[in-house]
């Protein structure tokens, strides 16, 4: 356990709940609306995403990948505008031009989502270079999956970061599956052998353990800030069974916090994931078992978050589609 105050832990939990309830709403939106594109949900990654967001300071930058929703929400973008973007509406974060795969919010430091595998890691390395040249105290974060290590540009970016001593924190979400494949296709024994070979300080953390992840990222970010050099954190996660759904679905059901205490009620093909891998249920259990918060307190928080997401959804669905002419503006600055 950690010495973090109750407030910090609850603040993280609230972020996690927002992330989860956001994604669950996305599934519902996808079931309801025809044009929504393919989604890569961040369910199961909330402990990591929230921990990363909490390690960020004002002025820090982050670049994400296709599995970006959690970061958008955790870093503080307006969920209504995020839903609106996913629906291609005028009030979307990107005015409808980007959609789910390109959500960004420069006001929160989330500079871009690249949906090309390897995009975020190299761009974040470039951002770190920019920050360094400007003498900023800020650092850059790169979010990407384990499959990204297959890409040559990822290796090149790691090398550049190490060689030029760039202040970038590499957040590798290892959900043990690249895309829809059974496992990452890297011939290394451990993912971290790659940054290790390139002399990048690296660590591993249980990416579904909220406290561990928060502590790890606080430390890692501090290392990057104090040394100016890159750090690589591998976050192990058990892939959410819904991840390779082409069409929207709730393979694990809508999250019910009560299940944290009623494990016997968990059944079905994905029981194992729900029981031991779901970071939300794990955190819920930890709060109550350690006496940090009561079930009622957590349920109340959840209710507030659920209402927030409901309002955000209403905002998004009320937003009109952009005028066709908008397609032609903004190609150049």
């Amino acid at each position, binding site marked *: 356990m950690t010495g973090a105050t109750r407030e910090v832990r609850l603040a993280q939990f609230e972020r996690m709940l927002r992330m989860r309830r956001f994604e669950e709403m996305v599934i519902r939106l996808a079931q309801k609306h025809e044009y929504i594109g393919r989604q890569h949900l961040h369910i199961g990654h909330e402990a990591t995403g929230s921990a990363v967001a909490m390690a960020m300071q004002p002025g820090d930058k982050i670049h994400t990948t296709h599995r970006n929703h959690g970061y958008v929400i955790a870093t503080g973008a307006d969920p209504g505008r995020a839903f609106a973007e996913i629906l291609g509406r005028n009030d979307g974060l990107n005015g409808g031009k980007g959609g789910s795969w390109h959500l960004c919010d420069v006001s929160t430091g989330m500079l871009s989502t690249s949906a090309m595998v390897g995009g975020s890691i190299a761009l974040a390395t470039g951002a770190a270079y920019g920050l360094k040249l400007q003498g900023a105290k800020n650092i850059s974060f790169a979010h990407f999956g384990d499959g990204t290590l297959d*890409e040559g540009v990822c290796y090149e970016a790691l090398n550049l970061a190490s060689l030029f001593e760039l202040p970038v924190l590499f957040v590798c979400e290892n959900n043990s599956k690249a895309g829809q494949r059974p496992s990452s296709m890297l011939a290394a024994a451990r993912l971290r052998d790659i940054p290790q070979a390139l002399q990048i300080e690296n660590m591993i953390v249980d990416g579904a353990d909220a406290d561990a992840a928060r502590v790890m990222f606080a430390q890692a970010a501090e290392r990057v800030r104090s040394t100016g050099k890159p750090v690589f954190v591998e976050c192990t996660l058990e892939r959410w069974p819904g991840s390779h759904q082409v069409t929207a679905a709730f393979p694990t059901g809508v999250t019910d916090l009560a299940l944290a205490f009623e494990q016997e009620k968990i059944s079905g093909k994905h029981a194992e994931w729900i029981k031991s891998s779901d970071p939300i249920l794990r955190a819920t259990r930890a709060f109550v078992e350690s006496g940090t918060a009561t079930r009622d307190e957590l349920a109340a928080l959840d209710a507030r978050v659920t209402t927030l997401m409901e309002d955000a959804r209403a905002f998004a669905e009320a937003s009109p589609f952009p005028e*066709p002419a908008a397609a*032609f503006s903004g190609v150049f600055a």
Partner: protein
Amino acid sequence: MPQMNLAEALIDGLIWSLRKDPKATIIGRGMAGHGPEHHAEDRLKAEFASRMVDPPTSEAAVAQLGVGAAMTGMRPFVHYGTAVFAYEAWNQFVNEAANVHYMSNGQIKAPVTFHLFHGIRGGGGPQHSGSPYAMYANNPGLEIVMPSGPRDAKGLIRAAMASDNPTIVMQHALLLGLTEEVPEEDYMIPLGKAEVKRQGKDVSVIACSRSVVDAMEAATELAKEGIDVEVVDIRSIAPLDVDTIVASVRKTGRMVAADETYEICGVASELIATVSIHAWSALKAAPVRVARPMTPVPFSPPLEKAVTPGVSKIADACRKACGR
């Protein structure tokens, strides 16, 4: 003749290729897409799982895996689920595969086939909607075909796999469900041969890939207005069948070039340039271009629609070419 959708037809072409040539081999997965037609791949896996390999997300080295294997005599079919992924293998396509035969002075060949899903596909957004065949065409040494329907897809894939050259097959992602009668038996459609898909006397729409389908629909609509449209499917941008294109425009005297690559230096530009150079005197009016406008493809449906060449834009272009 059985009905097949394009996904089934391309898988059929692939199956014939593997049956006929023990050197044929497959690198990649999801050959029939991830949409409702994806089950078409099951037949291929059932018969040839041992000749298929699922590579890492390493587009550049995967391209060379194919090229290098081809240089030892294999005939690899390398699939990229979305054409833009192959941007990571640009050098390997245009500066390695394309040069093998020429720069060795014919000592060695690279009979590899690259298969890519391209096009504005509904929700692909700025990064996943690319149609890079005009870019590839601006480079020598690559054969490039763009099937517009199931029958062509099967025959062109067979021909690509039989070709001794590096060949790129560009399949429009939105055509995978298109259905028509397709011969069951093995056949090839020669690379580099255009086909007149509809005879007409008033205006020639020279098109390829999805724009052929749109042009056929526009032609039906325009017939009601008394405009008789000829639709020429170039099928291949390299080699380009200049004779068939020019013959059509000489006949009708008017042309619309319709294609989904970007406007500037795109396929439609080339078609207009080719006709202007070779059949300028036969033109009775200025040629008209229907192409993807110079903007990234936005995600939002009404915006995406605004940048997509389609039936009504092609029909309007024909009206314009005919002075209506």
